[in-house]
């Protein structure tokens, strides 16, 4: 027992020489103190926030996106801003200032009829973000409601599953195009068209989450306490889903913007008089081949890409942060 003996000798000497006798008195016992737990002041949201704030890139992007959104609103009121729909005339020729490359006056240049791309892009970003957020929120609302009924109510399970199979198997393109034809072109049409198919995925996703959660014992506990079903869903399930819902939402925003681009491509987007990233990109698309004009495609594409990447990273960072496993 070599090791032990050595150690014992070392410390025993110390103890006899250096320690006072009073040290060997009994210490007072404090029961209440013993009940105090090791962790205190834990709050889910605070920890989530703290966890999130550790991800510097995500925080940066979040700030960036907020600033971006704020900017799209503020931009028109800044001094020296041009109107997004006004067609500018060349003071010398009196003709439209077409395809002017970016310069001091037109920060992002002008398009083929002499509208200021800088203001169009911000207006477009605002419209597209609005569409994105609206779609995301509506999808979540419907998706959660249906998903909750689907996952929680055993009676509704079969009919909703059938409904899901139906809606999921109607090709999305068909619904999108039909909707766009049947309704008037416009922001609300686009939002409706996208939500009509979009909620399905969300509902299925949330339903799967709810199925995982619904059989947890604490729900049983609530049931034995006589808690009604809707309250169990709202109080016991929803809080657990918030983080995935937020993640989904943050991904749904760029997805909706992307879908808008697609719809515009097949000719069902917003009218050009209403700038959006979709029609800016679609207008710019044909200009790819001409290096001088490519800026008209590049600026909106960059804005779209940056928004998508930002939401993607923020969403994931948030999902990580919202996972209590990652809380210290």
């Amino acid at each position, binding site marked *: 027992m070599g090791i032990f003996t050595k150690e014992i000798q070392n410390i025993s000497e110390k103890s006899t020489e250096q320690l006072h006798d009073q040290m060997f008195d009994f210490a007072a016992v404090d029961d209440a103190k013993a009940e105090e737990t090791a962790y205190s002041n834990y709050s889910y949201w605070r920890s989530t926030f703290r966890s999130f704030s550790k991800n510097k890139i995500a925080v940066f992007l979040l700030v960036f996106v907020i600033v971006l959104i704020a900017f799209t609103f503020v931009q028109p009121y800044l001094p020296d801003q041009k109107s997004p729909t006004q067609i500018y005339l060349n003071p010398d020729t009196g003709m*439209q200032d077409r395809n002017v490359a970016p310069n001091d006056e037109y920060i992002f240049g002008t398009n083929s009829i002499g509208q200021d791309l800088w203001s169009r892009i911000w207006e477009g970003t605002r419209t597209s973000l609005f569409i994105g957020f609206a779609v995301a929120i509506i999808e979540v609302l419907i998706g959660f409601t249906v998903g909750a009924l689907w996952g929680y109510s055993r009676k509704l399970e079969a009919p909703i599953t059938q409904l899901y199979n139906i809606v999921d198997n109607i090709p999305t393109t068909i619904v999108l195009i039909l909707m766009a034809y049947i309704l008037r072109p416009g922001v609300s049409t686009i939002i409706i068209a996208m939500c009509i198919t979009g909620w399905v995925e969300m509902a299925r996703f949330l339903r799967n989450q709810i199925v995982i959660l619904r059989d947890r014992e604490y729900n049983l506990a609530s049931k034995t306490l006589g808690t009604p079903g809707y309250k169990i869903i709202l109080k016991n399930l929803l809080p657990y889903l918030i983080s995935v819902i937020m993640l989904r939402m943050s991904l749904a925003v760029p997805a909706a913007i992307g879908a808008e681009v697609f719809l515009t491509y097949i000719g069902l987007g917003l009218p050009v008089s209403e700038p959006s990233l979709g029609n800016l990109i679609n207008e710019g698309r*044909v200009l790819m081949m001409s290096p001088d004009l490519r800026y008209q495609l590049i600026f909106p594409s960059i804005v779209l890409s940056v928004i998508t990447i930002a939401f993607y990273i923020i969403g994931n960072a948030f999902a990580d942060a919202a996972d209590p496993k990652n809380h210290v």
Partner: protein
Amino acid sequence: ACGDSSDSGETSEYRTVYSGEIKTLNYLKTAETNEFALSANLVEGLIEYDQYGVVKPGLAESWESNEDATVWTFKLRDDVKWVDHEGKDVENVVAQDFVDGLNYVLDAKNESSTAWIATVVKNGDAFYNGEVTDFSQVGIKAIDETTLEYTLEAPTPYFLSMLNYVCFFPVNGEFLAEKGDAFGTTRENILYNGAYILDKFEPQNERVLVKNDAYWDKETVKIDRIRYKYNKEAATVAPELFLRDEIDGALIPTSILDEWLNSDDKKDLVRQNTNNFYTYFYALNFDPQYDAEYEPENWKVAVNNKDFRKSLYHALDRVSAMLTIEPYNPQDLLSNTITPKNFVDVEGVDYTMLEPLKAITETDSFNKDLALEHKEAALAALAGKATFPVKVLLPYNSGSPEWANRSQVVEQQLENLLGADYIDVELYAGPATGFLGEVRRPGKFSMIEANWGPDFADPSTYTDPFTEGGTYNKPEMAEGYNSEYNKLVEAAKAEVDPAVRYELFAKAEAFLIEEAFVIPYAVGGGGYTASKLNPFESQYSPFGVTSEKFKGQSILEKPMSNEEFKSAKEAWEKERAEALANTSN
């Protein structure tokens, strides 16, 4: 690919991409330009045009009509063959084939889209509506194998030009009966008598035309093979394909024109396109039927004031609007009249140069000073009757970005010039399909950009839309209109002598424009192209299908440059005037 056509050893081939697919080879059914373009090369009718627009014999060797132009008799060639898709001889083309063709077209259950033209024939409309069921009562008769006789509903001096339409094309009745509904669905399911045979027909992929060896006029066919590759993005992709010498013709969208014109390698490759005979105009609506939100009643008051109309007429800067389609030579497409130039003529004098239309043709409607003058007058006259600014509902088809852009230009241009206190133009994005039915026909506009294409070689084809019952802007409801225009048109129609007839029509049209019921704007076509074809070699006709024929065209060594194009055009215009003057003698 583009070998010299005169070299007999090499085959000459023309390759291109296209984005609009045809839906059928059944020429008796279709009404779409790109389908005409194909049919014209596969099947032929009675007459053709030469490159200056003079009628010349096609399958008919000769013809004559009675005095009031109601009975027309044609003598057919006897050497024309129907061949199948492999070029095998099937049968001769005979007079009965034309009867069978018309019978098919006028049978409503065949859903022919061109039947409405064929109703010019006696009892045609009655047969279509089912009032007459016996086709022998319809005015067409095969006297013998090579003699064909048409009897018309009314005097129709321009009947020959109508024969350029697919609805008057022949069909082999036996073959048609055999194929039934399948007629025209595949290249095997039609018979050819034209310059080309379809060698390959895969919709949304590729189609290939090869020269028909049994064609009666095969010497004039110089291109051996025509290859169409489908590409939905042709507008984007074609220029690049052209540069790589993978195709011989490509439209160059204006968006990249700068780039081409500024580049030394490319600037000689591109030229303007010829115009077509679609006419574009802004129509002012006298029967507004839209939501109260846009104040239709107020508009109605305003539009009934001539000064108000005139102020709009003179205020519209058509050049600036045209820049959205044609930024380089916008004035080339402008049209001051409804009937385009070079449509018809009287002894070499173009219709648009007839009095009193001449004055209109020669002055640009855009005139700031006049516009403001009329504005003042209108303000004075309408004070207390209408509220200013007058709301002007200007819809556009959301399926067309160019139209949308143009509408924005027009909106701002008008408001800037006339002042926002005078008019308030409101844009409205109409649906992409059903625009006509949803917006224009029900009158849900104050002012609208509209177009119209000709159906035969007579000015009446352009006056029809504005007569009573027309679906454009109901000028008959204008105050003080008194059927003036209608009367003029009726009178013109009753006249058979072209000189008198055309003058009457010119008067009517001048009235329409002078009253500013419409604002003539432009003609269709134009744009830019890089192509190894010479546009002045092809048959010229402002309507019908023969202008789509490749027959007579050859492939150039290198594409025409714009300078070459311009000089060739000048030369052609001169030659045409001569040719027309000659024929009328």
